């Protein structure tokens, strides 16, 4: 029952994100503010929808076969990948802030802060996914 509820919670969150994203894309297209950014957003949204569909189908199949979506090993993998991604990203941000400082000192134009923030979040997410996959294959050190 708890597993079923967790599955529907996951579906609910994904659908909400996709609906909000689709609304954003539609509004942006109508306003035709920045076509390149809108197209990028649409592409990201479609990729998210495809990935969500694959994950949902896998989870549903596992649920029907009575396989728990998570257990103590998967939780410990997620915890380890999460805290390592956090620390690695801290050093990444620190390094990038030095680069940022050097660029500013030399009056070289760089990306706006909002875009840097997007890069940091994407980097942290990617590091987490890579570490999660690594620990899932190699095991978590005891």
């Amino acid at each position, binding site marked *: 029952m708890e597993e079923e509820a967790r599955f529907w919670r996951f579906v609910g969150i994904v659908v909400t994100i996709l609906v909000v994203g689709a609304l954003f894309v539609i509004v942006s297209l109508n306003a035709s503010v920045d076509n390149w950014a809108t197209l990028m957003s649409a592409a990201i949204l479609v990729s998210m929808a495809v990935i969500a569909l694959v994950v949902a189908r896998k989870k549903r199949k596992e649920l029907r076969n009575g396989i*728990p979506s*998570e*257990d*103590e*090993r998967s939780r410990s993998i997620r915890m380890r990948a999460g805290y390592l991604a956090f620390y690695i990203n801290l050093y990444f941000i620190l390094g990038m802030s030095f680069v940022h400082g050097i660029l500013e000192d030399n009056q070289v134009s760089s990306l706006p802060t909002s875009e840097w923030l997007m890069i940091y979040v994407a980097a942290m997410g990617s590091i987490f996914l890579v570490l999660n996959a690594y620990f899932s294959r*190699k095991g*978590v050190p005891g």
Partner: protein
Amino acid sequence: MKTRIKELRARYDMTQDDLAKKIGVRRETILFIENGKYIPSLKLAHDIAKVLKTTMDELFMFEKD
């Protein structure tokens, strides 16, 4: 860490999947425990021992032992 899970599973004609379902974990978890790549919690070790009708002491052997 070494375990006798595989041996005891064979004795009771149980697959990794069967054992995993009985104790409510994923099959991969059993695989990793058997290969010594994951050290289970006390509760999980207890549950495995109970299903395999043995004691934790009989089931798990640590290198220093």
